């Protein structure tokens, strides 16, 4: 088990607190199966360019910080670039801190870590240039809800009221119809955002997202794409049974 980054500095009244879904992502990304997949794809053989890892919806930063801290163990190379995006500015700040705290601990122990370029406040991948992302990770707002909370508009209050906080928290879990409204938009952006050569994505789904239907939809993207469930929370069988699907380009040179 690789150590989980500390998030003790994070204000959980307005930022998603790491939960079963977050830990399933950590376990899956560091599983033998995924290490093998990622290392085959990204190992520094013949000076391949440094991979760019993007986490969308970083929240506390626990997942991105984990990938950044353990890039050498997971990807087989330390020269990995990491970047985070969240629609919640407090989550962006918290992520930065979570990543930096973990980096400092590693540096003090003379251990390697990836290179974190920063966090951006934004809606999904809308601020990114096409074709740059090699590994995208998304633990979305996936709980079905009557409506999707509106996104902040970049207005400038630093003071937050209780209502602002609860809207930010709602944005972290409420997913609209089937819990899929935000995830659908993210999936639709993958062909543009993921790098032509090596792009792959890890996306968390819950049972109510109708994962089989989601996977069938991706299979219809046609040749050059594959999708597979690579991690499950299995044991509970409750209404929030979770799984991680890996979506990847198969025409890797």
């Amino acid at each position, binding site marked *: 088990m690789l150590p989980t980054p500390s998030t003790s500095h994070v204000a959980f009244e307005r930022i998603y607190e790491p939960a079963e879904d977050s830990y399933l992502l950590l376990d899956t990304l560091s599983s033998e199966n995924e290490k093998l997949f990622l290392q085959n794809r990204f190992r*520094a053989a013949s*000076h*391949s*360019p*440094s991979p*760019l890892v993007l986490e969308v919806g970083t929240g506390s930063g626990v997942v991105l910080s984990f990938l950044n801290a353990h890039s050498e163990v997971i990807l087989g190379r*330390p*020269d990995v*670039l990491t*970047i985070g995006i969240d*629609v919640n*500015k407090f989550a*962006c*700040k918290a992520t*930065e801190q979570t990543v930096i705290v973990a980096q400092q601990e590693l540096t003090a122990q003379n251990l390697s870590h990836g*290179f974190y*370029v*920063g*966090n*951006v*406040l*934004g*809606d999904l991948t*809308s*601020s*990114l*240039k*096409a074709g*740059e992302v090699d590994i995208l990770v998304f633990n979305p707002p996936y709980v079905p809800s009557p409506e999707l909370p509106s*996104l*902040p*508009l*970049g207005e400038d209050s630093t003071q937050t009221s209780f209502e602002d906080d609860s809207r930010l928290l709602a944005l972290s879990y409420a997913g609209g119809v089937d819990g899929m409204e935000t995830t659908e938009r993210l999936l639709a952006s993958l062909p543009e955002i993921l790098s032509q050569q090596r792009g792959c994505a890890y996306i968390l789904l819950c049972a109510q997202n109708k994962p089989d239907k989601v996977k069938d939809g991706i299979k219809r993207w046609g040749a050059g794409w594959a999708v597979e469930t690579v991690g499950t929370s299995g044991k509970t069988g409750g209404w929030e049974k979770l799984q991680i699907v890996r979506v990847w380009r198969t025409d890797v040179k």
Partner: protein
Amino acid sequence: MKVLTLNFLTCAVKACKSTSTSFPLHPKDCELVSDTIEPNALLILNILPRIDWNALITTASELGFPTLPALPPTRDELESNEKMMSELHTLLLETQISEGSLVCGNCGHEYKIKEGIANFLLPNHLV
């Protein structure tokens, strides 16, 4: 955020994506801070092939860094050119933008940067 981030960002307005002037975004009134980072030649050598060099030339000159050569160095050239290596180290790894804004060359929209976080959330009329 690190200066390197500008090599991955573009205007969030849909209509700008297809225009060549929306990338790179142009830093405006930016405050820079510098982290001290241990030399990491491997990282620079492996970032080099994925960098949009022309965009980096623009970014470097707009932020007031020494002018970069018109063509990117090859891996061998960079390995044996200490001065170039250290300039890229400073520009790509050590320099952060803490305050200021990024301006789209197509629509002119300004994305504010506060405490190192660039805000790409669009106002209603641009969504």
